[in-house]
């Protein structure tokens, strides 16, 4: 009988496959190659423009961090098999809601922030619930919310403030305990020490002469790193992460073995809304104002980052690290073109081409992983 058992492990119908090729293959391979290529490219065309000096690095880091924050939410949601077109509208909505509450209705800022987060995450849950209950594609449901939320944002800001931009959040933030979590900077001591030590450039003129050009790491970057680490940990290291993959890969199969697919999907819609809120709050705290047009088309940009990073639009496959690399590519290309003095309208052309090539390349990689089908 041992003979029978050993024999079972071989199947004469399977051809052997090179193990070397397998070793190279991972979902984020496309993202890694893309990142290297993009950095090389800009090192050549914009190497001497200050893009890779401390200040320039901080510039594209902040932009990439922005994309990263929403890309993490979109990535986990996409792996769970859904996507969210209402992200951009949610960014506009949450910023305006927060500003109206604090500036116009006199609610303390910390309470406004918390109320906004709670409400937006609730709307995320409504999105998810509708998708689950009606069985409609998330494209349709979230498209409806794209319009509904943007409409409410404009109407609300005009109704309450007769303006579509609401300032004055900056004053409210002063002395608030929660605001620095989104708008502050960390490591300021380190940077001023580095400035004194001559490690980084300092201002040479003007009334801040002697201070370092970068005075700290904005909380936005911290949030981006925290979310990426959290997302990656959640996805690859926890039970729940396994459920996310399962829900996107084959919801029926997952449900049969007891994975609470509906709960997973709704939670991911909520997480995506949460990320949009983090984005909006950081922006409002940094700039001190909210505007009704914030976040326009950000949903596409988040999806593009995620897809460039190797995730599958139909779910069940992808990586948060990949999405983060996608965000870096997006940010570096966008800012790099400014540094390289390229015509800014060509940015879109560039972006479209990168998207297409990245996706074609990722498809090829994925086919190898899943056994050429």
């Amino acid at each position, binding site marked *: 009988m041992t003979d029978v058992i050993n*024999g*079972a492990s071989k199947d004469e119908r399977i051809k052997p496959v090179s193990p070397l090729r397998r070793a190279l293959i991972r979902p984020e391979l496309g993202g890694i190659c893309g990142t290297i290529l993009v950095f090389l490219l800009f090192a050549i065309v914009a190497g001497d423009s200050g893009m890779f000096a401390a200040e320039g690095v901080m510039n594209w880091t902040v932009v990439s961090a922005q994309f990263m924050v929403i890309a993490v939410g979109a990535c986990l949601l996409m792996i769970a098999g859904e996507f969210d077109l209402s992200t951009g509208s949610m960014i506009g909505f949450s910023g305006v809601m927060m500003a109206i509450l604090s500036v116009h209705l006199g609610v303390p800022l910390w309470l406004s922030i918390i109320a906004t987060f709670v409400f937006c995450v609730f709307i995320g849950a409504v999105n998810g619930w509708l998708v689950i209950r009606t069985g409609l594609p998330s494209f349709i449901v979230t498209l409806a919310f794209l319009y509904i939320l943007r409409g409410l944002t404009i109407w609300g800001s005009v109704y309450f403030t007769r303006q579509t931009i609401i300032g004055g959040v900056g004053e409210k933030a002063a002395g608030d305990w929660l605001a620095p979590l989104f708008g502050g900077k960390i490591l300021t001591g380190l940077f001023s020490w580095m400035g004194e030590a001559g490690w980084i450039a300092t201002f040479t003129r003007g009334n801040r002469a002697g201070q370092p050009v970068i005075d700290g790491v904005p909380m936005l970057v911290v949030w981006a790193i925290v979310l990426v680490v959290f997302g990656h940990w959640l996805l690859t290291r926890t*039970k729940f992460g396994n459920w996310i993959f*399962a829900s996107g890969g084959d919801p029926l*199969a997952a449900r*049969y073995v007891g*994975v609470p697919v509906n709960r997973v999907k709704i939670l991911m819609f909520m997480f995506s809304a949460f990320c949009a809120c983090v984005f909006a709050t950081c922006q409002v705290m940094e700039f001190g104002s909210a505007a009704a047009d914030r976040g326009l088309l950000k949903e596409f940009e988040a999806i593009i980052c995620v897809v460039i990073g190797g995730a599958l639009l139909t779910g069940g496959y992808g990586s948060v690290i990949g999405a983060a690399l996608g965000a870096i590519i997006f940010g570096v290309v966008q800012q790099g073109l400014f540094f390289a003095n390229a015509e800014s309208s060509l940015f879109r052309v560039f972006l479209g081409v990168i998207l297409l090539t990245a996706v074609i390349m990722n498809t090829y990689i994925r086919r190898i992983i899943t056994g050429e089908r």
Partner: protein
Amino acid sequence: MTAIVEMRNIQKHFGHVIALAGVSFDIRPGECHCLLGDNGAGKSTFIKIMSGVYKPSDGEVLVEGTPTPFHSPRDAMAAGIATVYQDLAMIPLMSVSRNFWMGREPERGIWPFKTFDTSKADEITVTEMRKMGINLRGPDQAVGTLSGGERQTVAIARAVYFGAKVLILDEPTSALGVRQTANVLSTIDRVRKQGIGVVFITHNVRHALAVGDRFTVLNRGQTLGTAERGTVDAAALQDMMAGGQELALLESSLGGTI
């Protein structure tokens, strides 16, 4: 010996399709109860009710004598029913180890930082798969790269590993070669000896006769009765599955022309 799970007069309608028209069935500890039937007879529907995927339109499920309605697959699992589905319930893009543990991942650490204990999971997966005669390239190999037979074996290994009082196998041998089939049949035998009840679904009479203790035949949503081992032979079972006398009638009507 009382039955672990008893299904009484189960009916199931899908819209205007009547898939099951009143089927009764029971499974006792340590026996292998074969459920036979042609394509579309309703076998898969029946065991999906048994494992909590569908709710019956009518009829009762009794676990150890008490009526226990299942609201979800988790309920059935909690009642000790493990199922290997015909459509495999495997996710091709995920690794073998992740598929193996899906829904019952082992964890490590304390609450907010509980992690999926991958090293333990991988280790057990490799061991269990080796026990079933499959040598994996690695536990992180995607299920999509496995052959049909290997995938089937992962599903069985998973169900066996998680113990349970009743193990349901929906056509586990249909995608397998002879050697893997032999393996599955001897696994059934092994599992049964541990006092677990096995529900073995197939439309291959020979496979059923090799391991079955009792045989229930479904035909177009209805049961044609249950037979004990030794009271039926292959030909009789085959006849019941294909609709017995009706087919005989048909053959005579064709007889003149062929």
